């Protein structure tokens, strides 16, 4: 299988060193462009007025919350089935980033809900399932770090990540399956987006920026973890020698 070429940590480190600065640079560019267009240049909404600008942070953050978890679940499956150490490291280091995005989505959603709906929080299916996603991330972080044996922690975390992945379709389709206060999807829907193109452009720019930011942060974390494990192994070898 050709993917095995990338499972080599030395090759991964070389590749990551090349990719990471590009992600940071392009991501910062998209973020500045998206914020400028979204906060200053895009029109106010006919219903929501200026409040609609929260969307440019809230929606990409919510997409990332799902996207990062999907990646984490995939990496966990690869780790469980093919026992790639890099997949374990990827899953472990994606969790805090995903938790961060989920937290941003929850907080901005709450700030948006108060002026528009008239409430900070309701227990409808969409909001509740995203809160569960946040707790899944936190649970994963706690579980992976709860074992002295790194591999055991990774195995337990991988199983939790896979079990939690049933929540992803529930979050996505909660607004279609049940009555919710949250409105249905505006962009990822079969009959095309229901957002005017002047608002869609900054939204997509922000989504690209958040994705690049995620890749950059993940690479930084993974590189640090690989180096840390190397140091730990060297120390152990030296201690065994003496």
């Amino acid at each position, binding site marked *: 299988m050709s993917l095995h070429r990338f499972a080599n940590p030395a090759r991964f480190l070389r590749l990551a060193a090349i990719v990471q600065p590009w992600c940071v640079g392009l991501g910062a560019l998209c973020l500045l462009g998206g914020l400028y267009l979204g906060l200053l240049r895009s029109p106010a909404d006919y219903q929501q007025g200026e409040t609609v600008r929260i969307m440019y942070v809230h929606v990409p953050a919510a997409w990332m919350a799902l996207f990062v978890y999907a990646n984490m679940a995939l990496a966990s499956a690869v780790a*469980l089935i093919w026992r790639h150490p890099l997949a374990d490291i990827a899953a472990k280091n994606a969790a805090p980033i995903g938790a961060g995005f989920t937290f941003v989505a929850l907080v901005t959603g709450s700030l948006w809900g108060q002026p528009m709906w008239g409430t900070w929080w309701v227990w409808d299916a969409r909001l509740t399932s995203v809160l569960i996603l946040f707790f899944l991330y936190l649970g994963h972080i706690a579980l992976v770090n709860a074992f002295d044996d790194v591999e055991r922690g990774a195995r337990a975390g991988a199983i939790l990540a896979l079990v939690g992945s049933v929540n992803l379709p529930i979050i996505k389709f909660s607004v279609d399956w049940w009555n919710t*206060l949250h409105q249905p999807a505006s962009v990822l829907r079969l009959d095309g987006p*229901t957002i005017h193109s002047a608002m869609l452009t900054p939204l997509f720019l922000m989504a690209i920026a958040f994705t690049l930011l995620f890749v950059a942060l993940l690479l930084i974390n993974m590189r640090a973890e690989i180096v840390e494990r190397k140091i730990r192994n060297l120390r152990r070898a030296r201690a065994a020698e003496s």
Partner: protein
Amino acid sequence: MTRKRRRLYGVLLGLAALGAATAMALLAFQDNLVFFFSPSDLIAKPPSADRNLRLGGLVETDSVKKLPDGRTVEFRITDGPNTVAVHYAGILPDLFREGQGVVVEGRLVSGVFQAREVLAKHDETYMPREVADALKKSGHWQEGKKP
């Protein structure tokens, strides 16, 4: 069968079983997962007077009446075939108006919904005000349709 193959099938089987179990659980709790009932739901299955519940639908056009005390409002919520009268005293959210989706929480007392809280629901359409005005002017406006 190699060990990797066996682990792959194990993971797939586990996920399929988990998915099926979740789907069944969600179907079983269907009624408890809805955030609000529609007027038709309330008329088909009238709740007991002391039960706290949420009712959702569109505010019927020409149904909003502000009472002289300045804070009490009466309006009707419709889902097309059925309507329910609502009585509410308090502050309405900014998005509240006729034709707008709302969710009200309270009790159904002898046919009139006594609301404690009114929440506005907005649809998934976003567009600049000028575009909305132009659509309304040209007669192409449809509530809840994409631009």
